[in-house]
């Protein structure tokens, strides 16, 4: 029971962490809670189903399953990144100098739009992701771990590692950190802020797409409304770790996954979705800066 919940929690946590990274990166740079981020994750799950169905229809899946899966993966990520890029250009860029709550309301608008956009084009009923991997897995200290779970945990770990390398080692990563610290100073030393912001949205959306795909494979069911709950939970994870902090989002995501899985198992599963909110409210009251965040002084 305990190890089972641990594995479930880690799987869930990996997914939350990947979405939380997008929230935290955007917040770090624009100080905007990107409400539409959860919808990008939902789009990722849908695009995965759509592309896989397309490849099955043209016979690629029968010819080579791994090739079809890799193509599905790559295409979904590219499309989601493009969506993230476009959303920023249309809904947030014109509001960059507007009062702070304007982009937040605009983001809520985007979120409503995307949910209904998918509902109208893909139908309101659940979509089924083809069960490709059966429920195969390995026995591990008396616990069944499916290959999907192993894949999710491994893939999130690898992606987080790469993101960390990207942020700390590359020129673009450095530029991102500079813009997060001070936009004006960064532009004075020759950093193109628009490019950096676009890059942030592209990377964040790509990570959300991966999370969406993995959830589609894991649960086998996708609905147009999954983005909202997942988005709120991932946001909670980002706040738990300290919003704006990338390692914080990773730790926060995994912690939240574990908390949710254990409390659903040991306390009550009826309130499964409420735990995230309760944790969120508690953190915001007790330590709004989160585990890894820095407290910000309010400036006049």
């Amino acid at each position: 029971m305990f190890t089972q919940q641990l594995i479930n929690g880690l799987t869930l946590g990996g997914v939350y962490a990947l979405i939380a990274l997008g929230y935290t990166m955007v917040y770090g740079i624009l100080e905007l809670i990107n409400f539409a981020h959860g919808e990008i994750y939902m789009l990722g799950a849908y695009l995965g189903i759509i592309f896989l169905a397309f490849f099955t229809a043209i016979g690629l899946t029968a010819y080579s399953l791994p090739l079809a899966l890799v193509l599905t993966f790559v295409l979904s990520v590219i499309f989601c990144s493009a969506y993230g890029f476009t959303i920023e250009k249309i809904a947030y860029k014109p509001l960059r100098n507007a009062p702070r709550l304007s982009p937040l309301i605009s983001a809520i608008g985007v979120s409503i739009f995307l949910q209904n956009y998918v509902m109208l084009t893909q139908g309101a009923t659940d979509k089924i992701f083809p069960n490709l991997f059966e429920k195969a897995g390995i026995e591990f200290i008396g616990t069944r771990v499916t290959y999907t779970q192993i894949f999710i945990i491994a893939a999130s770990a690898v992606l987080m590692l790469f993101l960390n390398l990207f942020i700390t080692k590359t020129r673009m990563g450095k530029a991102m950190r500079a813009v997060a610290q001070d936009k004006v100073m960064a532009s004075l030393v020759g950093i193109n802020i628009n490019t950096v912001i676009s890059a942030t949205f592209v990377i964040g959306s790509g990570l959300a797409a991966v999370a969406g795909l993995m959830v589609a494979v894991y649960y086998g069911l996708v609905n147009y409304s999954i983005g909202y709950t997942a988005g709120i939970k991932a946001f909670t994870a980002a706040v738990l770790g300290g919003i704006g902090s990338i390692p914080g989002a990773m730790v926060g995501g995994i912690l939240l996954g574990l908390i949710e899985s254990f409390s659903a198992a040991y306390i009550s599963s009826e309130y499964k979705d409420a735990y995230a909110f309760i944790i969120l409210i508690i953190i915001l009251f007790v330590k709004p800066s989160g585990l890894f965040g820095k407290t910000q002084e309010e400036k006049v």
Partner: protein
Amino acid sequence: MSRFTASPFFIALWLALLFLPFKGFKAAGILFIALFAAVSLLKVFKNYLNRDSDHYFINILRIAVKIYGRCPYLKLRSIALTLLISGLVMALPFYWDDYKIDIAVLAGIYIILALGLNIVVGFTGLLNLGFVAFYAIGAYSYALLNTKLGLGFWASLPLSVMLVTLSGFILAIPALRLRGDYLAIVTLGFGEIVRLVLNNWDSFTKGPNGIGGIEPPHIFGMQISSLGHFYYFVIIFVLLAVFIIRRVAASRIGRAWIAIREDEIASSSIGINTTAYKLYSFAFAAFWAGLAGVLFAAKMQFVSPESFTFMESVLILCMVILGGLGSIPGVILGAIILVMLPEMLREVQLYRMLALGSGLVMLMIFRPQGLLGGKGVSFRS
């Protein structure tokens, strides 16, 4: 390159490509043509505006906007028009069928809700995304008091409203320590928790099945059960809300709220107790949401958690923003538009949320102050 990427052709192609996987080639093709036409037109119009801004057509537009900007203010104050409007409002039930009156009653309830939310968001500048929680608490407390304890409408009303105001205080005391968008998220969480509790506490709230058989109100021993009577009943409460909120907004408290909205640090430095006034604002807004909730429960004679989702909070917020933050006539107009419009456009109802979403984005970009909003309304965190 940037000239090419900004061309209507490229924009339309890009968006159509994004749309492609969701509905196939044919729909994407149609979308491409529609977008190409729309973006081109927009471009032409924009060029036209930029090239000769002294053009007489533009001047007419400008004057029209000016008149439009002043009109509602003058109109609403002119007695003749007020009388006309009130006469119309009073006479409507005689000409309308039940279906239309039903929508009008709903619009009245939403007006009270939107006026309440306007106190927090419009006057005080605090974004509350869980406003529907107070509405839910109001509706459920009347439902429970009535079905479990047998209390009537008039006995339950003060109790329910007091309970809601108290819950507004309880949420506000800790929440107000937070800055702008964090506050928004905490209120959202509060709204969700309330809904989840209503949904899962089966023994008390009957869970997703909801509570039925709620008694409609009585006046002088007469039961208000027909829709026409309920229409007038709701109008009395709407007028009460408008009157009281206007008076409070013009008072010392209201002016303190607006000062906090405009600059919190400056207002605290001139001696306004910002925490206390924010608290009043939260509780006062919750009061109206609770009243609306009681009315809703009395009208529907049935409540279930389905009526109190996050989308409902967003819808109320849209009413406030569409009408104009901080403007009472604006908020009333916003509520009426957003309740009536989807009913009038029944055939395209599927697209109503789509339009609501994109409408919010466009409103924020092109007219953040809303239809009747005044100048100087700004959010600060």
